[in-house]
């Protein structure tokens, strides 16, 4: 009984220890994403691309018919999901 308890405890500690690098990597990746967003916003505060975006959207609107809804991030990228994971999910979804 004591041995079983020890084995369970040992497994739990091992799993926790093994998950730390993964968690650290995710945190690091999200920190990189935050730096990326800050760097992009410094040169281009409008995520829609300013005048270039306006011209692109105008050309697009003239060339393509109105779309019917599309598959979105809903249920895939909950607010708690890391940016890295959400991107991977979205990218996977667009390929399938």
């Amino acid at each position, binding site marked *: 009984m004591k041995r079983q308890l020890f084995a369970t405890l040992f497994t739990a500690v091992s799993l926790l220890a093994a998950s730390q690098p993964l968690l650290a990597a995710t945190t690091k990746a999200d920190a990189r*994403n935050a*730096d*990326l*967003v800050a*760097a*992009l*916003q*410094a*040169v*281009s*505060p*409008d*995520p*829609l*691309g*300013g*005048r*270039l*975006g*306006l*011209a*692109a*959207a*105008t*050309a*697009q*609107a*003239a*060339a*393509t018919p*109105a*779309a*019917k*809804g*599309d*598959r*979105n*991030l*809903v249920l895939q*990228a*909950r*607010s708690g999901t890391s*940016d890295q994971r*959400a*991107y991977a999910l*979205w*990218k996977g979804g667009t390929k399938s």
Partner: protein
Amino acid sequence: MRLAMFAAVLFALAAPVARALPTATQVAVAFKALDATGNGEISMEEWERGSFALFRAADKNKNDFIDADELQGSSIAQDTFLRADTDHDGKLSIAEFMALRRAIFTIADIDRDDALSFVEFELLVVMEQVGWVDRNQNGRIELSELRESLTKAFEQLDGDHDGFLSTAEAVYMPPAEFKKFDRNLDGKLALDEFIAGYRVALLAD
């Protein structure tokens, strides 16, 4: 209706530079941040990754859409929003947002090699503020349109209208690039130096 739409866009595109341009350091930092592989150019994959991060940052209420009120107050952004919202549901989905961002990449990829060099990215940053000339309305900068687009950019950047760009007016340009463009070494760029400099830089990519 369509004429009115184009007139409104032309008016918006013709307006003077709305805010100060970023510095050369800021442009270099943004380029480096996007260029995840560090190979000196931004691939579509890297561009999409950056765009995705921008979408998530703009989606402040985390409902997986960009709503109109989540955008900054510029009228250009609001106009773009209306056009990019192709299903007219009053919000931008990730697909609509990414379609727009891909179109921006395509415009900026002047040499059509499916990657943005530093010079192309630098021009993208400038043209986001000053617009570009798309005579044939195909959503690309043709080499034949480049001269006109650069002339327009030059005129907008030349804040004191003396016909030359000082280092302060071309603040987004790295000093080494400015020196390279300044062929007669007079410390300022004339229009022909500006155009020739970019032509050479784009062909060298």
